[in-house]
């Protein structure tokens, strides 16, 4: 018994093949005689194996999409703040392009940085008065996210989103089995709107997608949605949690 006690702290290293030779031999000598420790080693080995085989949790597509949008926006912000000349304009109307061309840095970049900073300063100064070079340079073309509310209304959840100027046909709503609500769509700019030189270009255009994990189970087939005056309302009736019987335990 005491032998087992002595060796037990070595077993994790043993199954990992991390013990040196003399100790490995000592453990193995013991294992020949001790059935109990053999079981421990087998089950420990299986434990490590199970940990290795553990299935990763699946990452929802929406999560991945949001991550990539965030990264692109950050990257773009940096690019836009560096004021790329219009001639090097990148076509930002292609929303789903997986890889966007970016301005490459070259050795001279360091030298032009100071110049850029000065440009930026001037640009900030004049941007209120001068038309933007191209409306398509606006980051909003790329992706945007509508603002939403999610309210608990007792027997149902109420989801609201501002979707100005959107028609019913342009909005897609889906609800996954694990209660993730996704609202996606696209705001397009008409040809008429694209004309003219912009002094301000702050309204959002382009594709959007917003996914929200609902805090409770909802009855999937009783969800109602409406879009009125640019406000999307989704009513999601809660599923009653199964009532668990309370058991009274009497004191003896």
């Amino acid at each position, binding site marked *: 018994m005491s032998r087992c006690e002595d060796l037990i702290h070595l077993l*994790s290293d043993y199954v990992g093949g991390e013990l040196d030779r003399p100790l490995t031999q000592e453990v193995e000598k013991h294992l020949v005689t001790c059935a109990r420790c053999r079981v421990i080693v*087998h*089950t420990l080995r299986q434990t490590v194996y199970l*940990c290795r085989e553990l*299935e990763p*949790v699946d990452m929802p597509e929406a999560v991945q999409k949001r991550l990539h949008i*965030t*990264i692109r926006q950050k990257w773009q912000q940096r690019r836009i703040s560096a004021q790329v000349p219009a001639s090097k304009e990148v076509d930002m109307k292609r929303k789903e392009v997986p890889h*966007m061309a970016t301005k490459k840095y070259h050795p001279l970049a360091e030298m032009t940085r100071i110049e850029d900073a000065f440009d930026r300063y001037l640009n900030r100064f004049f941007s209120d008065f001068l038309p933007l070079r191209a409306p398509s340079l606006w980051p909003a073309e790329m992706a945007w996210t509508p603002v939403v509310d999610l309210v608990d209304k007792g027997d149902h959840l109420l989801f609201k989103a501002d979707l100005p100027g959107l028609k019913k046909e342009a909005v897609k709503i889906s609800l996954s089995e694990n209660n993730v609500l996704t609202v996606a769509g696209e705001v397009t700019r008409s040809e008429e709107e694209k004309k003219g030189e912009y002094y301000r270009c702050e309204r959002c255009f382009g594709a959007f997608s917003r996914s929200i*994990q609902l805090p409770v189970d909802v009855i999937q087939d009783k969800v109602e949605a409406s879009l009125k005056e640019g406000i999307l309302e989704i009513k999601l009736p809660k599923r009653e949690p199964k009532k668990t019987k309370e058991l009274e335990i009497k004191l003896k």
Partner: protein
Amino acid sequence: MTASKRERRAEKDRELVEKAKAGELRAFEELVNRYERKVYNIAYRITKNREEAEEVLQETFLSVYKSLKRFKGKSAFSTWLYRIAVNAALMRMRKKRVETVSLDEPLISDNGDHLRREIPDWSTPEDEIEKKRLMQVISEAIDSLPDGYKTVVLLRDGEGLSNSEVAHILKTSVPSVKAKLHRARMHLRSRLSDYFTPSRKRKERSVQM
């Protein structure tokens, strides 16, 4: 993952890091593609909450993006990334647990399983169903580990990193990683044994007054 495969992966990572540093969004996105699932997975395992896992995911890559210029490549990119992710996830857990007083990691026991009269041998599952059940039990057992042990198991066994990599990520020593790993594995093993010992199971279910 074999050592050479890991080496090749690290080599490709280095290339991508250099390109991303030079301003190539494409290269940075490729790095994100390579690791987003791993980061999400470990964040979820630590926080046990999908929303928080997503926030950790975003936080991690934004942080990587911001400090990429300062990353000198002394350690592998993956090690550096894991460190950022694990720290972000643990930080959240710490913020949530205001009631904690002890600064030390609580000790976990292996329930003295080796002292039992009979030890069930469940090392060869009979069929797929039983294997699935084992997976379920171990997954829950890992969830219930204290954070310090959990992260060691997830990184060492789950992600297949080496002791020294784990030590580097968690800013601790190799002996400390080994000690934690041993305790955690023995504890998990014991939890699985509980599952296969009917008498013990009954005992745990009864109401204690």
